[in-house]
């Protein structure tokens, strides 16, 4: 998103000399917590959390680092879930190939949607992606292989590489954790590559990037496809975790949810979408059994985020005096 909301000229705070070490320690603690978590918490909940965290991080790749707000990311998440579920259940593919097919399918959908949507910018881009993803929703509603309202149910998890039985919750958890880590590493690498730098340049000043000779449209399309593929990775894994793929995953509500996760956690930070999705998934879990419609809370949180803390939780912390003293900085 453009710099409209960017921080007012903050007083210079020099990062503590040991800030780098501290970040490394924090990262190790987080890794240890993720490895230990399934022995204390319900594994399905944790896996759901990791899937959505990866989904939100993939979405943030586009919003945070390229400045494009997609309102259609459910297409890639849910579409991939359908492809994976179909390949594994109907064709009997092993899980790793099923997920790869989901990723490839999501990337192909991303290419199609991207080619049309990047012709406009800003709010038009948001509206076009929303409309195209609604089109995909209607396609899924009517296509035979998605089984309409029923969805694809009781998808077998199968054996990873033919050896590891994923029906075992602990095995499945570590498979999801591994995929999540790989996805996050890919995003980190992508953001810090020359390609990622050019994306940031486009976000900051598109006419200037054009005048410098970059074919902006191709870079945007590249980022869009990359983001779609990673969202597809999250969707494919989610289909195996829950063993079904339904219309919920391709609906516009899902696109809205991933925006909320990213916005709440912090646009343009690597950790923000993870924190945001953890909060949203936890909230949904608490409210799942009550009669109270979760959309009221979701909507209010949306409004509060936009009005009060546009940097998101992690972004606000990074921008605070303590955050900057600890050497954190947000990318947007």
């Amino acid at each position: 998103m453009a710099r409209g909301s960017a921080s007012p000229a903050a007083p210079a705070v020099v990062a503590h000399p040991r800030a780098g070490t501290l970040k490394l320690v924090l990262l190790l603690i987080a890794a240890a917590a993720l490895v230990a978590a399934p022995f204390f918490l319900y594994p399905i909940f944790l896996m759901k959390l990791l899937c959505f965290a990866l989904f939100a991080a993939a979405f943030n790749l586009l919003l945070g680092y390229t400045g494009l707000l997609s309102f259609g990311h459910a297409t890639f998440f849910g579409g991939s879930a359908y492809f994976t579920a179909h390949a594994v259940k109907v064709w009997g593919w092993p899980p790793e190939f099923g997920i790869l097919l989901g990723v490839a399918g999501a990337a192909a959908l991303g290419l199609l949607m991207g080619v049309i949507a990047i012709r406009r910018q800003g709010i038009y881009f948001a509206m076009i992606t929303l409309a195209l993803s609604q089109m995909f929703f209607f396609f899924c509603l009517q296509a035979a292989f998605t089984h309409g309202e029923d969805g694809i149910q009781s998808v077998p998890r199968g054996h990873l590489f033919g050896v590891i039985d994923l029906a075992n919750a602990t095995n499945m958890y570590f498979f999801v954790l591994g995929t999540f880590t790989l996805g996050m590493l890919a995003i980190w690498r992508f953001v810090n590559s020359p390609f990622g730098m050019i994306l940031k340049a486009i976000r900051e000043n598109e006419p200037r990037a054009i005048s410098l000779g970059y074919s902006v449209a191709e870079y945007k399309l590249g980022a869009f496809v990359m983001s779609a593929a990673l969202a597809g990775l999250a969707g494919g894994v989610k289909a195996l975790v829950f063993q079904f793929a339904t219309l919920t995953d391709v609906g516009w509500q899902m696109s809205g949810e991933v925006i909320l996760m990213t916005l709440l956690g912090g646009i343009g930070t690597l950790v923000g979408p993870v924190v945001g999705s953890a909060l949203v998934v936890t909230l949904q879990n608490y409210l799942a059994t009550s009669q109270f419609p979760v959309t009221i809370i979701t909507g209010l949180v949306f409004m509060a985020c936009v009005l009060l803390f546009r940097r998101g939780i992690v972004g606000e912390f990074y921008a605070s005096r303590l955050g900057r003293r600890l050497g954190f900085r947000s990318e947007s």
Partner: protein
Amino acid sequence: MMTIFGIPTAALFGQLLVGLINGSFYALLSLGLAVIFGLLRVINFAHGAQYMAGAFAALLLLTQTGIGYWPALILAPLIVGLGGALIERTMLSRLYKLDPLYGLLFTFGLALTLEGTFRWFFGTSGQPYAPPAALTGAVNLGFMFLPVYRGWVVVASLAVCLGVWLLIEKTKLGAYLRAATENPVLVQSFGVNVPLLLTFTYGLGAALAGFAGVLAAPVYQVSPLMGSNLIIVVFAVVVVGGMGSILGAIVTGYLLGIAEGLTKVFYPEASNIVIFVIMAIVLILRPAGLFGKDA
């Protein structure tokens, strides 16, 4: 029985009428969106929710106070418009200096909150709203039967669209609005209260959505979810028409409604997505939209 292209004329005209009805709602809603966007640079995602709120206002006026259709046609848009103005004044107006995407996200949150609240109180099932006695029954046009209420929807929406267009193009208030769209700072320095103008505009847009909701209540059922799918189609209509022109929004609304109706006759499987397909084609051939000026 007469046929055209192998389709019975009665079915053809029937679907054309359905298309025209849908087009009436597309036109009214995209008009409201265009009016708001023109001045505020905000895409009002809550437009669908405000349409739903208009229908509920009419229903509640009837069930709680016994106020019938005709007064509700004025009162419900007024209620929705005032609610919109209040939200603009207290919250939305803080976002004008930011990237327009924040306005979209804020109104998206507003839409979710409104829908969730109505769902909490009224459940998800639709509730019927009877058309007024004067507009029941049907007339024989010779080639088809026209239900009177449906004819009324087309006439009323055309009249309101024309009225709003006249208000903006031909009155002094409209001149202020157009001037403030071009250069708000200059207009303010001439002594026009621009913030009040913005509040009025958002209220007007919301009231238009509310009016469409009352009009829709007897045609479709009144349900909390009636606006959420509609608004996405209306977004596609707006993209096809281009945001630049009020007249463009109206014309595109009717045209796409009719295109959707015709698709129902010739290839029903695609009727849900035809507007999105048209949008994609228009974007490839003419990215600024049919009536758009901005690139």
